[in-house]
């Protein structure tokens, strides 16, 4: 909402406050002032000029040489506008003037001809192109004949004004009008509000003699008022009206349309003017559209209607989309002589639906959607009739054609002062509350110590006691509210074990060298299931903004890998990222199964200590080590077994198993996947983190620090290359019994000296008895068992 302060002052005394100060007071009381706009832009030296003579420039087709009377003296000014002509009153920026955009006007020579200033368009005075009347959109603005030559344009045409741009929240529909804002300002400043005076002479003929009305949809349209004005002359509106509309962000058209827009801005009540003769039937019928019925609206769009769209018809065909936009077939034009002014109350739901169906929003529809004041529908019609009579020379037919089934009663809200103070934690006196309600112009009676408030219908947002609490608090001042802390039973607060462990996981991973990433949950249907541990039916948005963000992810890796590629493309060659977040899986339930996952992606160097000759690229085992460390940290047992997944290297992929269930996958990207993503060797992990976080570890009990020494024996084995170290380790453990405490791989050799298809793996075995020092014989006895089991398993002892 754009509020011209000059216009506002018609209704309320702003006590001479500077615009910025007034804006600050409004903001602090509840309606945010987003901007304070100086319409004068600091312009000076801009005067009314009279073009006495206008001839073509001999050297330039598009330029005219004008002799302009600027008040007592005549200056030659070169003008490039196509619509310049002798006899016009125009806006002249004289030498020394500064125009918006810091344009300084100086004497100049244009193609050899002297020019003493500039004849201006409205755009050059800082008015947006879309607000300039169409007739002057491509050229200079022509002032009315009666404009006084030499007088100051800024002050005479209300450009010495400031506009407050209000950022309205949806509850404050009341402030979508000048009068509504006046009530708000009046409440803030304790000032009265002066409403416009309505007076016109009625013709002897009555409106009903020309017009009949049928309302076929009284629920959607409980109040309809039509006034008829005949013998109107459709022409340009006077300057003051045009300026006010432009200040309010509305483009002037002609005196009829301008008045309807003016009253819309003034009262917040949408109005529409029909050309009576174009209606043809002398009838207005409001009904729901027939399925498939067509209308061409004022924006020249042809629209196909459906049964829930409310339309105004002439009894035969639609002439307006009710509350949204008029129809082209009944538009007021230069030849119009008789008009019908419509002021109506349309139910907000109906208008919202129509507005949404046709993707069409107007100043009217946005007000109907939020609800207009039932008690301004009739006054607005009268106000418009009186202004049109005044500005068009028309005569208003007596009475109105009206259907009225609208409840216009004020709502009563009863609230006790104690309730208000208890909610606020304050001690505002009863008298102060009464004063505030009076400032708001809420009729209030004190009955048995209660405030019984008749809420004016303009304030539809005041429904319950809490709404009154807010009104009292905001006008008393939020600064006055003391600062206390809740008085309630003390609770320990804290994280749940799950949340606590999530932080442990993050801290661990960060300590292990990974950076935390956050990526988007929405992805393309193409990548939604890549690397998914368990694919379910995909979940797509009803109306995605793009295919890239159309589907909920079932794995974290695709976006995490995009982040890795993003970095390597920017010459960060070594990247190690992790992310924790939900993946979205369809279930039988109403909602999705949101499973918290952990993903890791790493590429490049893991260790780079070049000057000491230590350089290590990331590989499968770097990431596996991180996962193993994480399992140890959380006290859960994980196993790894050879696995397969699309997009991963078939020889370098493992499933992660917990309690016999696959809960994750770890592997190197498949070379073709790496190539497609422009990546070098990249190791990835996708794992169900929730399973890890939900696992309840056993109580932590210490085992005594060993009092007896342990003994180590090493074995080097020659194995077939396809035999996995893990299975040999199991063989060793099973044979070693309870004295075998630790088995560790300490060497792997697959080099030249090995027989084809063989490898050598060396294990270090640690034997230990917590009860005594083991003898050599005891260890040998167990170790022999291990060796024999290894032989049985096909392992060959290396000498």
């Amino acid at each position, binding site marked *: 909402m754009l509020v011209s302060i000059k216009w506002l002052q018609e209704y309320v005394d702003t006590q001479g406050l500077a615009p910025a100060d007034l804006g600050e007071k409004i903001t602090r009381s509840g309606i*945010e002032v987003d901007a304070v706009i100086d319409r004068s832009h600091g312009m000076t030296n801009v005067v009314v000029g009279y073009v006495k003579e206008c001839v073509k420039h001999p050297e330039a087709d598009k330029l005219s040489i004008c002799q302009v009377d600027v008040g007592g003296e005549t200056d030659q000014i070169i003008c490039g506008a196509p619509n310049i002509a002798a006899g016009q009153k125009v806006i002249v920026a004289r030498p020394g003037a500064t125009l918006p955009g810091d344009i300084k006007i100086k004497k100049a020579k244009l193609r050899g001809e002297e020019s003493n200033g500039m004849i201006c368009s409205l755009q050059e005075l800082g008015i947006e192109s879309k607000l300039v009347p169409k007739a002057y959109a491509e050229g200079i603005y022509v002032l009315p004949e009666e404009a006084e030559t030499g007088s100051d344009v800024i002050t005479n045409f209300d450009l010495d004004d400031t506009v407050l741009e209000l950022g309205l929240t949806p509850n404050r529909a009341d402030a979508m009008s000048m009068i509504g804002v006046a009530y708000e300002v009046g409440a803030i400043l304790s000032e009265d509000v002066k409403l416009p005076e309505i007076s016109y002479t009625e013709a002897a003929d009555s409106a009903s003699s020309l017009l009949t009305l049928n309302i076929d949809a009284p629920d959607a349209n409980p109040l309809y008022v039509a006034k008829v004005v005949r013998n109107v002359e459709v022409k340009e509106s006077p300057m003051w009206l045009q300026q006010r509309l432009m200040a309010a962000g509305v483009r002037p058209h002609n005196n009829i349309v301008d008045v309807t827009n003016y009253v819309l801005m003034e009262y917040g009540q949408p109005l529409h003017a029909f050309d009576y003769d174009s209606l043809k039937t002398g009838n207005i019928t409001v009904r729901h559209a027939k399925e498939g019925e067509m209308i061409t609206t004022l924006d020249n769009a042809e629209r196909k209607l459906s049964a829930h769209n409310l339309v105004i018809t002439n009894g035969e065909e639609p002439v307006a989309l009710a509350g949204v936009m008029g129809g082209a077939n009944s538009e007021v034009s230069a030849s119009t002589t008789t008009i019908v002014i419509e002021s109506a109350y349309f139910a907000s739901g109906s208008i919202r639906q129509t507005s949404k169906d046709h993707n069409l929003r107007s100043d009217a529809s946005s007000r109907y959607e939020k609800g207009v004041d039932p008690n301004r529908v009739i006054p607005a019609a009268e106000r418009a009739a009186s202004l049109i009579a005044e500005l068009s020379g028309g005569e208003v037919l007596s009475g109105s054609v009206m259907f009225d089934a609208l409840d216009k009663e004020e709502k009563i809200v009863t609230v006790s002062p104690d309730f208000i103070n208890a909610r*606020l934690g304050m001690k505002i006196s009863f008298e102060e509350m009464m004063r505030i309600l009076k400032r708001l112009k809420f009729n209030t009676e004190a009955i048995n110590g209660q405030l019984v408030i008749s809420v004016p219908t303009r304030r539809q947002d005041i429904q319950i006691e809490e709404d009154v609490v807010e009104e009292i608090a905001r006008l008393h001042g939020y600064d006055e509210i003391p600062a206390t*802390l809740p008085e309630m039973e003390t609770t320990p607060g804290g994280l749940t074990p799950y949340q606590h462990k999530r932080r442990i996981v993050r801290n661990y991973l960060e300590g292990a060298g*990974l950076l935390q990433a956050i990526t988007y949950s929405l992805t393309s249907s193409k990548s939604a299931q890549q690397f998914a541990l368990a694919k379910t039916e995909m979940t797509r948005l009803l109306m995605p903004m793009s295919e890239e963000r159309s589907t909920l992810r079932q794995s974290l890796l695709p976006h995490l890998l995009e982040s890795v590629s993003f970095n390597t493309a920017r010459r960060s060659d070594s*990247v190690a990222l992790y992310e924790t977040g939900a993946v979205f899986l369809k279930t039988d339930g109403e909602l999705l199964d949101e499973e918290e996952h952990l993903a890791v992606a790493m590429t490049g160097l893991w260790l*780079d200590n070049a000057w000491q000759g*230590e350089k290590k690229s990331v590989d499968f085992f770097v990431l596996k080590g991180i996962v193993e460390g994480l399992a140890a940290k959380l006290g859960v047992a994980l196993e790894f077994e050879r696995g397969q997944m699309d997009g991963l290297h078939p020889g370098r992929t493992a499933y992660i198993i917990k309690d016999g269930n696959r809960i994750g996958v770890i592997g190197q990207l498949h070379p073709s996947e790496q190539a497609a993503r422009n990546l070098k060797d990249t190791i990835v992990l996708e794992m169900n983190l929730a399973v890890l976080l939900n696992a309840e570890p056993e109580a932590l009990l210490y085992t005594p620090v060993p009092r007896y020494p342990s003994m180590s024996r090493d074995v080097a084995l020659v194995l077939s290359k396809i035999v996995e170290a893990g299975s040999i380790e199991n063989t060793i453990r099973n044979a070693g019994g309870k004295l075998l405490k630790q088995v560790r791989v300490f060497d792997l050799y697959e080099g030249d000296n090995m027989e084809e298809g063989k490898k050598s793996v060396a294990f270090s075995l640690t034997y230990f008895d917590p009860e005594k020092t083991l003898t050599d014989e005891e260890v040998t006895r167990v170790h022999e068992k291990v060796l024999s089991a290894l032989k049985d398993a096909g392992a060959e002892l290396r000498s």
Partner: protein
Amino acid sequence: MEAQLHVLKTEALEKIAASENVKELNGVRVAYLGKKGPITDLLKGMGKLPAEERPKMGALVNVVREEVTASLEERMALLEEQAINEKLQSETIDVTLPGRPVQTGNAHPLTRVVEEIEDLFISMGYEIAEGPEVEKDYYNFEALNLPKGHPARDMQDSFYITEDILLRTHTSPVQARTMEAKGGEPIKIICPGKVYRRDNDDATHSHQFTQIEGLVIGEDIRMSDLKGTLSVFAKKMFGDEREIRLRPSFFPFTEPSVEMDISCFKCGGSGCNVCKKTGWLEILGAGMVHPNVLEMAGYDSKRLTGFAFGMGPERIAMLKYGVEDIRHFYTNDVRFLSQFQRTEV
């Protein structure tokens, strides 16, 4: 024999002095003092002397031996020290060379902000509540006093999956769910999480972003409690000198509703480019829980009241760290992320 002894001593002392290293000196020791050395020989030869000369000669030999031994030890100490010094010299390193890097990662800046806020409220007795990101329209809107067709729904254009299921547009449904689950009991929770709105991604908009909300419900919770709580939050989060200011606002789920500004932490309130010359920074929205919201969750709004507040960690991180583009939080550029390594404590 005495003369012989003298020569021997002089010779030994010269050789000791001439020894250049421990090894050479040990050679001298063995040569003169060893079991096969001349001094031992002399002592052995004492038997040949007349009995009355033996004590005198014995004493004389001992004196020489002690002198040689002392000189040797002195020289040994010197040479050992020299040897150590040489070793140290040869082992000297360039301490200005870089250390062996310790691979370290760090939390995302949004996590950092969220955890800081969580911890602050945990210390005041709050619990952390979480909920689904894909929500029922009921919890996201209706239970929050936003029935279908409510004009305020326009404020948050949403991603719907079906007519009744959508990506949550705020973390408030977690509040609605918690209230429903608590069955009328008092509540003190903080709800962090991801939320989604139909926005085109640009420098100040993101279709996915983070929110963190708080909810307190109890007997006689007042608006002054909200103000006091937010004031503690502002000072802990942005510095002790911060002042807060409440402005009336509108949210369908609170009444009265407020926006909270804090005095600008960059300029202290005198006006700068961070606060756009106003001296104040808009940080969060809050209010007293709307009675409809309480009633819908089964609370007696006459007996129990509450307050709620909500803020955007992105905005806080942008203000705090001077980040100019919200997209930085989601591109995961390591040159951005790794800047949030160090502590500010």
